[in-house]
């Protein structure tokens, strides 16, 4: 079980689930969570490659830490925009925000 391919399969699954969620979810919070899945799939990849293929220097782990920090900032910005949208449209459903066309 403790092999590179296990981790890669899990991360590919996470990535696909995240992408599916973004395309299929209609709730903005749900979409935001799906984006976090994408980022975490990449994080898992970095950790696995770091552990099995390129253990020295620990670039993969450093990148993972950075990505976690950036993901938090991203969620803060996203939630603030969603909150402002809720105040104006009284809904966090993406279908409420589809008036611009052409």
């Amino acid at each position, binding site marked *: 079980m403790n092999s590179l391919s296990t981790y890669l399969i899990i991360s590919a699954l996470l990535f696909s689930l995240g992408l599916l969620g973004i395309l299929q979810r209609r709730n903005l919070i749900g979409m935001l969570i799906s984006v976090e899945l994408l980022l975490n799939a990449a994080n898992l990849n970095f950790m696995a490659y770091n552990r099995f293929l390129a253990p020295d220097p620990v670039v993969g782990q450093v990148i993972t830490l950075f990505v976690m920090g950036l993901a938090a900032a991203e969620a803060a910005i996203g939630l603030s*925009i969603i909150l402002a*949208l809720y105040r104006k449209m009284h809904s966090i459903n993406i279908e409420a925000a589809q008036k611009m066309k052409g």
Partner: protein
Amino acid sequence: MTDFMLFLPELFFILGALLFFIFSLRKTPNPAGYHRWAVVLAAAGLLVTVASSHQEGMLFFNCYRVDLFSQVFKVLMALGTIWVIFSSGELKGIDTRQHAEYYFLIFVCTLAMMMLVSSVELLTIYVSIELSSYSLYLLVPMRRGEERYFECGIKYFMIGVTASGLMLFGISLLFGVGHTTYVPQLIKVLPTVISQPAAIVGLVLALAGFFFKLAVFPFHIWAPDVYQGACNQVTTYIATVSKMAAAAMIIRFAGISGGASPAMIKLLIVLSIASMTFGNLVALIQKDIKRLLAYSSIAHAGYILIGILTLNSQGYAAAMYYAAAYLIMNYSVFMVIMKVADDGHNLQIKELAGLHKRSPLLAMTLMLGLFGLAGIPPTAGFTGKFLVFAAALGKGYLYLVIIGMVNATISLYYYLIVFKAAYLLKPVKEYPPVRVDFWTQFMSFALVIMSIYLGVFPDRFLSLTEAAARSLF
């Protein structure tokens, strides 16, 4: 001490951002004062960037390379920033309480893009591109009033974070096959492993983040809504400065594969054709001029890609020239839009009617800008298209050049509709007069002269971009 000098332009923009952060904490806003400060700081920033344009060196444990390529783009971005800030004198589209934050975010975003073009380590690239995106995510929904435009903020955010998620996954795959995140090392390793599927998938996914910024075909969906929904000054910033950074990074990334992968070149060709054709065809039916320019920007992203996908220094130099020309002509058009719609509303094409009587100078600037975008000589836009197509022909992509030419002809139609509105149509009702102050006149003349000078005498600037493209390798 020398390291400090290398980082001077960026330090200067950090300083500007800090100052506006402090201003944003004040209880009573002073918009006119902020604008004066911003113009002075941005002008000084441009001078500092130009002064340090011939520096070379490495910083931060070799993660950050200052070379001719990065410095040329930094000068272009500083130039675009001062133009945008200069036009923000009457920032009617944004609440006066948020003006300090607006300037703060513009400075941070320019800083991030300057760091982006200098980064040669995947982590630095990722952090800088996120910093610039986060600033833009906040700038886009800042518009006052207009309830119906608010949704563009969330659309921009969602598409942006998805693109950056794809990009990060791509970077992780590149790390997996290359065992390094240092770009100069990746350039050496990647051509030997490019036949592995993981390498090619990683590279394409990593490019997704930059395609989003440049609005290339599958990631273009945000452009029309954001251009229409953001306030005029923010749209101008996205349409000019942020395109520079994206073009620079696609040039740097496309070179990683070393031209060893025909699959990747085929993909870039398909994306370029799709962007050009889609952008130009949909632009034909637009009524709102900012929306029209959004579709035109998708088409222009396709032209820039033609230069990049040749993967040689001639093509990169042509793409850089094209990007600079695009900055000038796009800003010409946007400056006229901002001046005619100085109360911050969205300009419809028919509102330009009779502009040549209301303000002959602005009408001329608009004409030169539109002719440049359409690629009519003697403007810089024509020379740019010529150079890009010549580079593609040199590589034998005849069909790509033919499709590009057909597209340029299609695009002529909708640029001429705008031109017709400004010069030939009679206004159906009385529009308020356009106020043109001294600095706007000065800028109009400067833009017209720059556009024609670059178009007729491209040699000096072209030799600069060629030297910059060579410094990539």
